[in-house]
């Protein structure tokens, strides 16, 4: 009698382990590293984030000198959020970043 049989029959009556993803979502833990979000007021344009980003994904805007993140390059390592002296960057919970246009994938 295969040992997996009771497993299989029990599963029939248990609530499935999967959720219907787009409709129901799992809640994410609080230090989850999603897309970095920038709070422009706090920024003092010191340019440290440009140097520490491993992927060179952060560039300063020409005019306003505020950081802008190329989401095509960002690997969400959370280094900018850690080392920014003014805590301008915070890692949000957003991870659905699919887009048609690579140049629109920018986190302002």
């Amino acid at each position, binding site marked *: 009698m*295969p040992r*997996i*049989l009771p497993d*299989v*029959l029990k*599963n*029939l009556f*248990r609530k*499935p*382990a*999967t959720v*219907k993803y787009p409709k129901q979502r799992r809640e994410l833990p609080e230090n989850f590293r999603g897309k970095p979000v920038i709070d422009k007021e706090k920024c003092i344009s010191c340019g440290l984030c440009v140097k520490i980003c491993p992927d060179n994904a952060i560039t300063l805007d020409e005019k306003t000198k505020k950081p802008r993140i190329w989401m095509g390059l960002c690997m969400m390592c959370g280094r900018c959020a850690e080392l920014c002296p003014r805590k301008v960057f915070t890692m949000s919970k957003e991870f659905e970043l699919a887009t048609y246009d690579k140049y629109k994938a920018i986190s302002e």
Partner: protein
Amino acid sequence: MIEALGYVLAFFVFPGILFASAVGLLFAGIDRKLTGHMQHRIGPPIWQEFLDVGKLFGKEDITPAAANSFVFNCAPLLCFGAVTAVMLLLPINSSQPVLTSVADLIVIIYLLNIPAVCMMLAGYASGCPFGTTGSSRYVVQLFGYELAFITAALSVAAKVGWSLSLSSIVSYQAQNGWMVSQVALIPAAIAILIAAQGKLLRVPFDIPEAESEIVHGSLTEYSGPKLAILRIAYNIELFVVAAVVVNLFFGGPVPHTIGGVYIPGVVSFLIKCFGIVVLSTVIRNIAARLRIDQALKFFWTFPTLLAAISLFLVVVT
């Protein structure tokens, strides 16, 4: 004229294409949903098979350059035609099938082999190495389960006094209870269930379509409408093989009155077929896929022996 119209109607609507494909696709959908829940996941909706087939019909029809196009295009149609033809020979709503002939059990067994032959032809004709490997494995497996299947069917025919017509088998069972209830035929019932698992290419024996080794076996090059026809043919075959097993062993379309409620023959027949499909789904979910040589060794030892025993018992007593 009216009779001819009756036949055409019977072929296209009731036990024919429409009814068979609807029930077949529904059974396959329930089978996928059950497999999903058995694997502790939600699984697709029950009508998923209808959606899949519908989508495939919309796709572009491609014939690979290396393929031998005539055989490649005809194989699905032949397969589909053979399987629906079997529907007419099966007693569905009463012990009288649409087309009766003296030895329709033999005709059914042959018609059930045509889809297998078509799959082999399709594999060889598709010109892709996966196709040829899949077909050669299918030939080996065909010889494996066919022996058990025929011996089990013969043992039932022997029980009914060597009459090979299904209607006589069904009417015999109407009088003195299901074939399975007789001890001599229980090994044959087990044997035919295992052989059906092999015939339907379900997991312990789905070697010709092993997706981790040869993509989709002989159906690798098929896409679009041709694949849709093959999928419908496979689903009808699922229903037909279950129907044959029910007719041979589980009493066929016999109306019952349980608790005062009158259940017409067709409904009880469909419930019994559904039972067989569920049993095959359970077997599908508790076993790994065997190698082709192991499968052949298994087929020729275990189920064939059981069928031979019950044939011997029936002939002796």
